[in-house]
């Protein structure tokens, strides 16, 4: 760490964020560097490629002001590291792990590589425990489990920031473990106002006390943007696997991250893949998202709730598409619902939590929670079909049963999905059962007779009063 090598006067080209040096030193791929221009500004960077005679440095700050002459490069001899310690909670950092809340630097207990190491599959413990978010569309329909990575797929102008803040403030563990809960929040490429909003909201709700905040602004360099989630996840790994906390990481907006990835890749002259994004975007995103999980024999967990905005609301766009292939489900927000005033505007059919079954049911939420969710899904899917039918042939062309489903659909959206205040999961389940009472019993194929009897009243009772 201290035996730093320095190259001076070796620069022979600057292009975008890339600085080319004649190879005068023995340095390795991916190692960290500091670039000091003749302007006296020190910029962070890392080695992007090395060959026999050239070293290419990716500069993580603005390269404006760099000249070939007088540029000094210091090599760290190791990848970028982040100094972390217990005092990290209740602090605010910029996108590259520097304190920006005016307080003193934190006392470092560990220096961890920001890239982390892949967790061995055999060392992972399968995620199991329920994590309450206070949002019915999540808790009831797509439950979040500790150690899971479950993104919000949103769109420009949709209230994802608000949802994120509400989850940060209201997410709960069973009371005994409440102490051990922490939040790492990273704003990636966010505008000034949003950054301020996040900081203010977290202070107001008191969430900041148990949180670490990283803010990479829209005006910061693209290359830096690539590091922000890595610093955030390193802090989270420290809290989860060294301090034993249950950590929820909220990353917003991953679309900005991917745009930065495309930009940097293009400036390196790489062969682009779909829509100009680099072919390795899947693997690159995986190195971030796969840092969620639990480790056998360790108390902490690392849960991720990344947020991304779908360009043109297109779920098939490479950013949501590749993310969906890595994450364990997705919560999809919908413009139509938003327009109709449904908050949170969660479109449940394309939403999914793959680990839900491991976090709910007997001893966790309720024995009949899985059946309830399955029935609500089936019924709402049928309601949507009826809606499509009705939009063409009119309600009169529907059968009586289909009309009942149609009605259920609206009820579901405005009473089960929509709610202003955070809802405990018990209440979410109660409104769910209530909603099913609008349907004829013999159409509830996902429920057993016993479940119908227990939660919806006696079987022989006609549904339609």
């Amino acid at each position, binding site marked *: 760490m201290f035996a730093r090598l320095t190259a001076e006067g070796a620069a022979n080209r600057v292009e975008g964020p890339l600085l080319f040096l004649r190879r005068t030193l*023995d*340095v*390795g*791929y*991916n190692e960290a560097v500091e670039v000091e221009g003749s302007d006296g500004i020190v910029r962070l960077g890392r080695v992007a*490629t*090395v*060959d*026999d005679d050239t070293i290419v440095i990716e500069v993580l700050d603005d390269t404006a002001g760099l000249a070939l002459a007088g540029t000094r490069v210091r090599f760290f001899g190791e*990848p970028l590291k982040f100094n972390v310690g217990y005092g990290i909670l209740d602090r605010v950092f910029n996108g590259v792990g520097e304190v920006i809340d005016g307080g003193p630097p934190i006392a470092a207990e560990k220096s961890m590589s920001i*890239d982390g190491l*892949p*967790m*061995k*599959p*055999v*060392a*992972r*413990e*399968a995620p199991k425990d329920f994590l309450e978010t206070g949002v019915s569309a999540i808790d009831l329909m797509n439950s979040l489990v500790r*150690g*899971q990575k479950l993104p919000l797929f949103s769109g420009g102008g949709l209230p994802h920031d608000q949802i994120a803040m509400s989850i940060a403030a209201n997410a709960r563990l069973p009371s005994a473990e409440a102490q051990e809960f922490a939040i790492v929040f990273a704003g990636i490429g966010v505008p000034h106002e949003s950054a301020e909003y996040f900081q203010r909201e977290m202070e107001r709700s008191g969430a900041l006390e148990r949180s670490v905040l990283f803010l990479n602004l829209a005006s910061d360099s693209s290359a830096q943007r690539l590091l922000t989630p890595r610093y955030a996840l390193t802090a989270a790994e420290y809290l989860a696997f060294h301090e034993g906390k249950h950590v929820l990481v909220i990353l917003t907006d991953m679309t900005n991250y991917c745009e930065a990835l495309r930009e940097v890749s293009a400036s390196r002259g*790489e*062969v682009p*893949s*779909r829509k100009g994004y680099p*072919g390795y975007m*899947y*693997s690159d995103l*995986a190195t971030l998202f*796969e840092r*969620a*999980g639990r*480790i*056998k*024999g*360790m108390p902490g967990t690392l849960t991720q709730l990344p947020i991304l905005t779908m360009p043109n609301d297109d*779920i*098939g*766009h490479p950013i949501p598409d590749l993310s*969906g292939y890595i994450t*364990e489900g997705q919560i999809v927000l919908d413009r139509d619902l938003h327009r109709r005033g449904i908050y949170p505007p969660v479109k449940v*059919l*394309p939403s*999914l939590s793959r*680990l839900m*079954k*491991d976090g709910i049911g007997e001893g966790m939420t309720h024995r009949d929670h899985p059946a309830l969710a399955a029935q609500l*899904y*089936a019924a709402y899917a*049928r309601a949507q079909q009826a809606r*499509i*039918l009705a939009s*063409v*042939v009119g309600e009169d*062309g*529907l059968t009586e049963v289909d009309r009942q489903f149609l009605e259920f659909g609206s009820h579901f959206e405005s009473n089960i999905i929509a709610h202003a205040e955070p809802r405990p999961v018990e209440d979410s389940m109660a409104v769910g059962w209530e909603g099913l009472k609008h349907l004829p019993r*013999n159409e509830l*194929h996902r429920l*057993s007779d016993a479940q119908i009897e227990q939660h919806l009243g006696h079987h022989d009772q006609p549904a339609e009063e």
Partner: protein
Amino acid sequence: MSQAIIEWVSGPVVRARPEGAFVMREAVRVGEQGLLGEVIRIKESEIVIQVYEDTTGLRPGIQIEGSGQPLSVRLGPGILGGTFDGLLRPIADISVDGPWVKPGAIEHVAADFYFMPQVAEGDALTPGAIIGRVKPARGREQRILVPPGTSGVVEELVAEGEYRDDVPLCQLRNEDDKRHPVTMSHQWPVRRPRPVSARLPSDEPMLTGQRVIDCLFPVARGGKAAIPGGFGTGKTVLLETLAKWCNADVIVYVGCGERGNELAGLLEEFAELEDPRTGRLLLERTVLIANTSNMPVAAREASIYTGVTVAEYFRDQGYDVALMADSTSRWAEALREVSGRLGELPGEGGYPAYLSSRLADFYERAAKVRTLAGETGSVTLMGAVSPPSGDFSEPVTSHTRRYIRSFWALDTHRAHARFYPAIHPLHSYSTDAGRLARWWHAEGCTHWEELRTRFLTLLDEQARLERMARIIGKDAMPPRQRFILMCAELLNEGFLRQSAFSEIDRSASPARQAVMMRIIGEFIEQAERVVADGVLPEAIAQLPVFRRLMRMSEEIPEGQWEEFSELSDELDKSMVGLVTSNQQTGEA
């Protein structure tokens, strides 16, 4: 061995200046850590190496050691029940070296096994012959094979007892008087298919316990199937379900560029669940090859070949093996990434032009065979495909289609409605179905083919009628058409839907599948008759027996044959009742 010096590093690709001769596909060790790599291109003054581990810190000047051998894996009795990386190196327990994957050489650790010889000194053995058996502490009995390519007369045979898997059990003296030691394990190059004495036609299904597969789109032993589907449509759950309940002797599960949590879940479950056929833990018949999405990309490319090689090794012992690969698209992307770094001309979708032939190399290794030792064994391949935005016209899906025989297309709409398995009956097919009918016949399910055709036609009609309903409204359809929609609903809900998480229904025996098929067939027949007699389909759907049929898959477990026959009786009675009351109202 030859050596080379690194000149250039970019991600998993390294260029080096050779000192001495290298051959294509030769395995190499890079640097002090001994990172494993493979020669993928040779020029006069340069070799290109694909490195299977994290290359952070590699730099020009570092040395590369050739091995003189193609990239190979060590096959032996220790594999079964284990978890390995893409190059079949054991992934050590957390207690050994912590929870993180660290790059660098991992030495093969030899273990002891109890060996029972089956040959005698002086026997002349041919390649692939069985010299004896071992019975590992966990897992099934295995056979020790003479490696393909080796033969001779047995000398210095050891007595029955415990031996390490790398010490000679005997020597084989061949015609040239050379002696070859035979150990429990041997090396085999992953990219070379293991030889067999003949490929056999297959007329026996590989049973999966999934009704939509076994009854509608079956796969034969030695067959090959693809499961394409957008994210979240159920590829992994389906592959895992097959790995749990299919009737193969050995399962090779290749987690190729997918999620760590999934593999952790699979390991946990397999260590608890029993194989209903043997009563032993599922883990004991499974080999897990794990290369998650965050592990080095290049090893993904190798992991598929490693997996098939392991599968062939068990096939050669006379076993029926099933290999699941999740997901072949990640493997193809690894090809694409390496190709891109080499500056090769990109083809369709950015994939290299040789994508198609590489896919063929993989799928062509599926077969039912007569082994060199004269036994029968099979390798059945099942690969998930993850097409970008769920579009099946993309290169990996469309090339895969050319080589497989069963196509299980997962449908986003079904998955969104939580209808699982989300296999779309109109977009899926099986070219094996025709020749498997005889097997079902022999099992006593004499109407299998007929019912299968009936079901498929019904589903086809349903799709047509639903399109029509969108124009004229359901209410305006004649009873006969509403009857078809009702039957299709029952077929979907009561038969094709099968939750992987339901203890009762996660796997169905052929007998249970046959009974359910028959009852649904009876329903269709009887309902058709009463509808022709003037009963409204809605009246049938209101019958309590209809709800019971809809829920029979979740409520009547394996072996409860009386319950099924009661249900069938109730069906008869209810239908008769309907006709009678209909006649009465008609007369009144």
